[in-house]
């Protein structure tokens, strides 16, 4: 299988040159993950080997057919699980457990149903024993930023799916992470909400200057939001392509009408189509 295959970059005209020296936020080197199959001695090769360097402040998306190991990749990067081989670093240090400065937004709703919106968002800070005034400042800011101010006293059961994901994002935001990992956060939402949430995510990214890794199965979402898109093969997942979009930092959902968007999209699908067909063909449900 092909490993990294950097295409001839089609750098875009709107790109602004970066002022900071290029620095790695996190790296994965030779990371693989094997799982033990239930009831048999066989090992199940889920992921890798993966080599990836996330540059500071970039927005990186991962797309791939279902079952290719995208979530496993995120788990390894976040320190939620140990890779079977290879190494993971965050800000130059080896990852053991979840490092300070990493925030994760999960695919499912992780808001705590027994707390209202305000308490949900401030939960992590309260647990860390942060000073009350600082907690208030950060929570108010996050609620304002995510448009949740009017719902501070509401409980997750009273909110829509999109709102609940916003609560989860706000809960991550208050910890001021330097790396934000999102695992298909908008998967359960309808298309229109997704597009708007995408804009919000970009806003968040610019505000916090964090590095963002987004896992999504929606190509257009990846194409629109990212600086770079990593295309993974079918299981065991490897990066078969990393596409540079070259978008300007100040982008929003309106770039979907540009011809360049169409090119990126087409490019992603070209690589992904073959891999997805493999998954369909081998599916034995």
């Amino acid at each position, binding site marked *: 299988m092909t490993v990294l295959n950097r295409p001839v970059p089609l750098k875009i005209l709107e790109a602004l040159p970066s002022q900071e020296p290029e620095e790695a936020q996190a790296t994965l080197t030779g990371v693989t993950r094997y799982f033990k199959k239930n009831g048999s001695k066989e090992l199940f090769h889920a992921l890798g080997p993966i080599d990836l360097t996330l540059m500071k402040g970039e927005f990186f998306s991962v797309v791939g057919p279902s079952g290719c190991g995208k979530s496993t990749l995120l788990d390894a990067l976040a320190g939620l699980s140990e890779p079977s081989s290879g190494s993971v670093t965050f800000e130059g240090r080896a990852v053991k*457990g979840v490092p300070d400065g990493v*925030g994760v937004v999960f695919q499912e709703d992780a808001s705590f*149903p027994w707390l209202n919106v305000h308490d949900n968002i401030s939960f992590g800070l309260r647990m860390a024993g942060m000073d009350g005034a600082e907690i208030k400042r950060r929570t108010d800011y996050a609620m304002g930023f995510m448009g949740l101010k009017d719902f501070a006293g509401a409980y997750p059961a009273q909110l829509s799916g999109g709102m609940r994901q916003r609560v989860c994002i706000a809960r991550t935001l208050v*910890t001021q992470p330097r790396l934000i990992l999102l695992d298909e956060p908008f998967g359960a939402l309808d298309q229109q909400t997704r597009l708007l949430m995408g804009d919000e995510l970009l806003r968040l990214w610019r505000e916090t200057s964090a590095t963002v890794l987004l896992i999504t199965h929606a190509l257009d979402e990846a194409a629109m939001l990212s600086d770079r898109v990593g295309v993974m093969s079918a299981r065991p997942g490897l990066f078969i392509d990393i596409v540079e979009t070259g978008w300007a930092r100040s982008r929003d959902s309106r770039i979907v009408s540009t011809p360049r968007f169409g090119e990126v999209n087409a490019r992603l699908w070209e690589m992904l189509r073959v891999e997805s067909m493999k998954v369909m063909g081998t599916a034995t449900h």
Partner: protein
Amino acid sequence: MKNYFDPLIVAIVIVACWQVLHLTVGDGSLSSPWSTLTELVHMLGTQAFWSNATETAKALGLALVIALAGGILLGVLLGVNRVSGVVAEPILLNLYSLPKVTLYPLVLLVFGLGLSAKVAFGVMHGLIPILMFTMNAIRQMRPVYLRASLTMRLPLHRTILHVVLPAVFPEIVSGLRLGFSLTLLGVLIGEMFASQRGLGYLLTSAMNLGDIRTIMAVALFLTLFALLCNGLLLMANRRLNHR
């Protein structure tokens, strides 16, 4: 108010059947609803009744506290580990369906007659449902909560106190509802044959005297008490389930 109407009809029907049964078998075998009620009201005014009732209440209270604390603790311990949960469940189910009366002589030999034996009976009955409900709630807890607490880098004790327990709280209340009834049952049965005090004892002594009025009055009192407590816990459950 519509949904109070039908159950009310049912209650009236039950009382009516009771009256008919009374008329069929005679006053010596079954007192009428009215005489039972008057007997109960009269009984509530006597010192003897209340001293027995407080006996039972003491045993019940103690047994509940122990069953609740023990059940939650063991439930958490068995539930967090995947293997222990799977191993323990059939054993617990088996113990649950065992007629616990069979162990009563053992309890009496260990605790002797008196309060501690009664409390032991109560705990024997109530511990397992609370344990099982807690354990299963933890096993079925959405894993994303644990992953969220990992990403927030919470230490273990905080994860259990601030994430796991609040998450399984509604199920613990359900278990408590069942555990409450069973603990009450255990305490009463204990009093029925191995005590000189308490409402259960009141029942058996009345039975030995053939005093059907007292039997039914006490039974009525216990029924109303049990229904009241169950109703309160049910309300609490419903409020929690709105999450």
